[in-house]
């Protein structure tokens, strides 16, 4: 089990180093997106419209933060991951079109997305679910918020993070998928009960 501290954007070389089971910490800028934002990203892509923030070769964080207004800006109070599977249907296309390097979330994704990840050299990173207070500690600031018309949790939050983690590599660029392995084993054990 390796431990890596990477700065964002992640280079193609660095992302290939990551193996299932490794622990990663990220420093730099990432963008949050949930259900409605994924839907809109796809619409923008299909209409050839430019996204409000550069997401090419970036990291998408499945998260709807809880923030408090402080002066003219926002302070992130709690910002752990949300379930990735809900946006699974959108991900293969988004990963391919934007050449996304890493998806951060919880619970993993289905097979078609994992295939897109292998093809595009993208990894799935799991932040410990429910650890919103811990995640907020590693967020240094909110750079911008876009698409707040979707409701604050569903907006695109551009976050500046430092040593953001621990993140666990759940799916790597070779297509190894920890969630699938665990589930397959669980089903096997259930059958042999």
């Amino acid at each position: 089990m390796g431990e890596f501290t990477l700065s964002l954007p992640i280079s193609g070389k660095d992302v290939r180093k990551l193996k299932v089971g490794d622990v990663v910490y990220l420093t730099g800028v990432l963008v949050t997106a949930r259900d409605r934002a994924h839907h809109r990203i796809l619409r923008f892509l299909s209409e050839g419209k430019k996204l409000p923030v550069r997401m090419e070769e970036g990291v998408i964080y499945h998260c709807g933060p809880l923030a408090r207004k402080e002066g003219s800006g926002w302070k992130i109070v709690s910002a752990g991951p949300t379930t990735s599977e809900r946006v699974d249907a959108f991900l293969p296309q988004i990963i391919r079109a934007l050449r996304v390097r890493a998806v951060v979330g919880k619970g993993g994704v289905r097979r078609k997305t994992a295939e897109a990840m292998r093809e595009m050299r993208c990894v799935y990173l799991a932040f410990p679910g429910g650890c919103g207070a811990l995640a907020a500690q590693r967020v240094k600031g909110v750079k911008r918020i876009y698409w707040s018309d979707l409701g604050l949790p569903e907006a695109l939050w551009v976050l500046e993070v430092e040593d953001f983690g621990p993140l666990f590599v759940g799916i790597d660029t070779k297509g190894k998928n920890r969630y699938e392995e665990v589930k397959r084993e669980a089903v096997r054990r259930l059958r042999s009960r």
Partner: protein
Amino acid sequence: MSPITQAQVERACFELLKSASTRLPPDVERALRRAFEEETSETGKMNLQAILENVRLAKRQCIPLCQDTGTPIFYFRIGTKADLRADLERAARKAVRDATRLGFLRPSIVHPITRENPGTNLGRGVPWVSYVPLREKDWVEVVLLLKGSGSENMSRFTVLDPALGVEGVKKFVLETVIAAGGKPCPPIIVGIGIGGTSDGAMNLAKLALLRPLGESHPDGSIARLERELMEAINETGIGPMGLGGKVTCIGVKVEYAYTHTASLPVGVNIQCWAARKASVRLRSEGRR
């Protein structure tokens, strides 16, 4: 004796929202510490360590444990002899509005079809409020559950063929837990309702989650079912966050009701590790 007032109930509801969102009940925290001791997978242990660190941080800084502060669900248990002069639902709504404005709750509640978000966590049916009478008591107990959707979305209901019996129930619960995998943020607590009618079984499953973790069911055969299911769930190896490990579950709670001879309804309600529940007993002002 003076009555229980509107202001008293409002204050109590607000305090419950604030404390439930920022600190874990002691029984749950204890169970998570034990889980950390028992876990042998390195990834699993690190995830549990992050959870414990998160619990400490949230408590110290008085900030929400998890950004999904869930759907607020209030149970008012009302003594039939309580002198109550308050509109309980109005008090709950005011407290939810205030707690949202002050950043203790994320505005997560939307219209089910249009998905419009009023930004207040208030809407038709939210907060969810239900009333239970308590015979002969002179107090009111307010119980709050903040139910996050990552785990609530994993709920399942079925009506089994009665011939399938307890083995059928176990199989359904295990299949539900495996299908949920890492999505409900394991280690989880599993609430199970057996019997009644369809809505009754789901309601029992949720009520089961309110029972303290250390305490098994007073009915011996149900207590045994709880123990056996807990063992079987942990044998799946799903582990913390679905990344593999020994500890998938820190509690199984079963409630039951008699049912029709043709039915065996089973409801499963999964609770994430962030089991945010709190309660307080209200008596007339000046009495404790």
